[in-house]
């Protein structure tokens, strides 16, 4: 092999380029067709009035947006999605952090606890929603029976969204706990030993050592959960009948997106709703990204 190193390097670069793109091709082509083009197409649709069967779309500029921002139903759905997120994410993150901390001790039955707490993650949300609907039943539901009350969990506009959030928290607790537990197990023991020598109590250790060290994972969970919670759909779709008096105060943006796009075939308006959701999501992601510089500690 009496080749000059230069030409060898060039050959290697050429080879990396060819192999690299060969490997990437399916994914890149797929992403462009399945995701990138649809983003633009949906934005395009949001500026159009839908013709019949998706044909003859008429350009209407910002008309859909102007209408949506005055549409009480959509404004309420926006509020509902935000409120749901503000209930589900902080409570589930705080609770699962506590659970993970407890599970990170030398404690008996931890595998049993872990198995049980993670269980809702493997159940279909449609089934989960049905059983909760049954548990929440005003007349015959288990929860009202235990409480000895007649609370209309899913038809009282004041509490229906809380009920949906309860289901959300119940469903996601195990997932968050597993992620936090994985992060906790990476924390080196020496830190605690040193803190112990300095006489720091368990609580101080948790806030001064544990939380800062797993802050990157907390940030990751917060960002992904906020995005996911803003997209709440399954439970609401399964719980709320069209005749439910609490519908307006419970339905989320994605629920309305589904209804307008695929029940009423008003794709233009449906697209407008989902673009609004995109904007809200981006605002929260940017805010969190800005905020993390103040509290997330990378080593």
């Amino acid at each position: 092999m009496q080749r000059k190193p230069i030409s060898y390097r060039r050959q290697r670069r050429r080879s990396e380029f060819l192999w690299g793109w060969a490997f990437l091709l399916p994914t890149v082509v797929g992403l462009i067709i399945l995701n990138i083009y649809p983003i633009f197409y949906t934005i395009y649709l949001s500026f159009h009035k839908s013709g019949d069967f998706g044909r003859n779309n008429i350009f209407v500029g910002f008309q859909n947006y102007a209408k949506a921002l005055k549409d009480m139903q959509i404004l309420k759905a926006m509020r509902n999605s935000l409120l749901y997120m503000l209930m589900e994410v902080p409570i589930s993150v705080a609770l699962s952090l506590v659970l993970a901390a407890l599970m990170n001790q030398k404690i008996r039955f931890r595998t049993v606890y872990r198995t049980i707490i993670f269980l809702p993650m493997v159940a279909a949300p449609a089934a989960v929603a049905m059983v909760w609907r049954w548990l929440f039943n005003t007349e015959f539901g288990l929860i009202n029976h235990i409480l000895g009350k007649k609370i209309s969990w899913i038809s009282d506009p004041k509490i229906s969204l809380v009920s949906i959030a309860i289901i959300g928290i119940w469903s996601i607790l195990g997932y968050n706990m597993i992620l936090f537990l994985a992060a906790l197990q990476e924390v080196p023991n020496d830190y605690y030993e040193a803190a112990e020598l300095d006489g720091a109590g368990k609580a101080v250790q948790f806030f001064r050592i544990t939380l800062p060290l797993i802050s990157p994972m907390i940030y990751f969970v917060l960002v992904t959960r906020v995005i996911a919670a803003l997209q709440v759909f399954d439970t609401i779709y399964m719980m709320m009948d069209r005749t439910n008096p609490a519908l307006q105060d419970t339905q989320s943006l994605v629920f309305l997106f589904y209804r307008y796009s695929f029940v009423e075939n008003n794709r233009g308006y449906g697209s407008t709703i989902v673009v609004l959701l995109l904007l809200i999501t981006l605002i929260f992601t940017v805010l969190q990204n800005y905020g993390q510089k103040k509290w997330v500690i990378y080593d």
Partner: protein
Amino acid sequence: MSGHKMNRKKGTIGKLATSHIFLILVSITMLVPFLWMLFTAFKSNTEATSMNPFYILPREWRPDAFVTVLGNYDFGRLYLNTILLIIFRVLCAVLTATMAAYALGRLNFFGKNLAFGLVLLQMMVPSQIFVIPQYVMVSKMGMTNTLFGLVFPGLVTAFGTFLLRQAYMSLPRDLEEAAKLDGCNIGQTFFYIMAPLTKSSMVALGIFTALFAYKDLMWPMIVAPAKEWSTLAPALAKMQGQFTTKYPELMAASLLACVPMIVIYLIFQKQFIQGIATTGGKL
């Protein structure tokens, strides 16, 4: 999951007891809905809705609700469709993502950053933004109510590419150098040396993809409304419309939909939990 990191002497009995009480309470909260699903499914409708006296367990375990549900819905077909959807989604995800991830994680070439940008962009936007165009495409191809239509949005995966890229990035450099010296080209290095080392991440992606496909409600509802191509989740939604307040029937259907995945989970617990932990990534 490695050993316990908190083996300090201070773990007094009192503290552990409080931990146990809290964990037991949470565990009960997690289990009650499943148990209630099970008990209700074996009750008669009058028994399920009788409050006084209130029976927790069915007085007699009757399979009536299951008979009604199985008579009205072809569960064999629902299971089959769901399994097919899961298999194809997992195959597509692991195949495409593993190749793309190797390119993004280990090779240097022009256009790589742009491609990675596409991956990140896909992950940052709410997935509903893809739904109308994807549906229009499937429908223009005349592929509604087909397996292809069901699998369509999962042909490639940005999340999986991201996940596996991290796995490749954590592998040591010398492996590739050694393979190169042995005369392997890039394809051989990938296929024989590198890809096998990311097996645990591939399993993680497989589990995640399978769970996602199993749980998905909106897409199958839109793209496969016909009975023959329905999967479990949208079928449950339909049953709720049909049986409305016949809770034993609804709970029997939910149980039928949940039990297979729960059994698989209980058998492969370790893989499930480690897999899910991996999706949090090495941060």
